[in-house]
């Protein structure tokens, strides 16, 4: 499977992280990290706790700027954009601890997810012009399609906080997809899921990839990461210590020492 994917044409990278560093008060969370993501691929980002994975996510999504280095998304440097601008340019994410809008229904969560793909403003909402009604109808249809695709459409009108945890994860994923991203960052999407749910998640992630969406995946579940990823990047103490095919990384000595060696594997 990985051989077939390896043969993909060497496209222009969708995301290019070059020599990026970030420190918080003397702690080097990310040090001189470079890598690039080829469109349509899944990249697994692994490393022990505190390796800088979440910091890297926050740098890519524009939560805070890097101290040094540059991140280029779709041909443009990202540092001058705000988070919401990056979302409309095509970067979406999920959170390690599911962050749903709990006072809203399942459907409304997806509707908010389409915020950057709709344009009704204050005046539009007050006067409800025909185009606003059309946009709203279209948004609701899109939302139902998305909910159906992750299998929770029957709960569209339930408060999102009432869903069982596994479904909350699916909803968050669907909400990220509602932004029609080119790049999807998943922060430990399998955390808290049981084996069946994790397997379903793996299939879903591959289905998302088939739609042409590039995925960067942080995940502690090794079997999931190794199965779905085309490429693995290993971080340790803020630095990239390995990058390659899943098989190569598993055999890499530095990785075994820093990371895999400490676990049962």
């Amino acid at each position: 499977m990985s051989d077939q994917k390896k043969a993909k044409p060497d496209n222009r990278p969708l995301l290019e992280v070059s020599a990026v560093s970030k420190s918080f008060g003397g702690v080097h969370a990310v040090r001189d990290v470079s890598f690039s993501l080829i469109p349509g691929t899944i990249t697994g980002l692994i490393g022990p706790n505190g390796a800088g994975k979440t910091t890297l996510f926050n740098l890519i999504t524009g939560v805070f700027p890097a101290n040094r280095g540059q991140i280029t998304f779709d041909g443009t440097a990202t540092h001058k954009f705000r988070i919401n601008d990056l979302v409309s340019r095509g970067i979406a994410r999920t959170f390690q601890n599911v962050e749903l809008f709990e006072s809203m229904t399942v459907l409304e969560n997806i509707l908010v997810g389409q915020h950057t793909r709709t344009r009704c403003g204050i005046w539009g909402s007050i006067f409800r012009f025909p185009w606003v009604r059309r946009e709203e109808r279209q948004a609701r249809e899109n939302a139902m399609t998305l909910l159906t695709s992750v299998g929770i459409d029957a709960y569209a009108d339930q408060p999102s906080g009432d869903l069982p945890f596994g479904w909350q994860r699916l909803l968050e994923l669907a909400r990220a997809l509602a932004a029609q991203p080119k790049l999807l960052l998943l922060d430990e999407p399998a955390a808290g899921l049981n084996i069946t749910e994790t397997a379903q998640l793996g299939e879903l992630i591959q289905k998302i990839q088939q739609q042409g969406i590039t995925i960067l995946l942080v995940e502690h579940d090794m079997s999931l990461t190794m199965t779905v990823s085309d490429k693995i990047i290993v971080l340790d103490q803020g630095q990239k210590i390995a990058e390659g095919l899943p098989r190569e990384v598993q055999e890499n000595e530095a990785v075994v020492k820093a990371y895999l060696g400490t676990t049962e594997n």
Partner: protein
Amino acid sequence: MTNRATWFRIAYTAMAGIVILTGILVSNAYHLQLLTFIGINTLLALGLNMLMGYAGQISLGHAAFYGIGAYTTAILTVHYGISPWMALPAAILIAMAVAYIVGVPTLKLSGYYLGMGTLGFGMIVHILFREWSSVTGGASGFIGIPPLELGPISFTSGRNYFYLVWALVLLSIIICQRIIDSRIGRGLRAIHDGEKAAKAVGVNTSALKLQVFVLSAALSALAGFLYAHLVYFISPGTFDFITSIRMVTMVVIGGMASIWGALLGASLLTLLPEWLHSFSEFEMVVYGLVLMTVMIFLPQGLTRGLMDLYERSKKSQT
């Protein structure tokens, strides 16, 4: 969506009906005046509720916008002889401009710090009303604000003013409800539920907070305009810190994130002091006790509390 829309249409029609009937049935001038004040306070609570209940941002200085609305129309109509109907858009636009200027730096704050920032703003504006006496009349107040007239219709009589205020309340309720049920409203509620996640789905949180801050200032200024032309006399004391707090109390007591909560909260806080006159010197004690009781037993506010009570009674019947 359709059900919700139908439900709201029924609610609006019912409210319009109640307003019209009340205007016909109530003839006591004092009662009409009281009901008019409820309407003005509802406008205040409605605007602040958009900011607090939906966007989750507190303001402890909103009386400033109430005062800006009142003083702008007073100054323009008395000093410059401008028609009140021309002064109305001016009052609203000035309040919105001030909200914009104040909002850009202030809304970068959150939680307690936003509270402190808006508190400071409210106090500065209050001092301005009191000390800039050549323009505002200073501490002794501003007299001689003209009544509203529209051709042959004069809004001096209690009934006409009552209808004018409540028509504007109904219009404002519809506007707010439409905003809440739109993309903008969902963005606001997303900020309230979790700002980090709201940003991550692409909501421009700072722009949206600023917009709703400006909107709430506009509603407060409208209330200020109506207040000034109702009582013909304004003084700085009406727009002080206590008024800001009373506005927050209306929102919290009525129920955050509820349009009808604003109406209930404003009604209770307007009527309560009237009902409690008989307690004479203990009035404020009882007033405080009532508010505490509501918060202890209906911590979600009157709207949610009454809805829960209704559902519980329905369950116990079956």
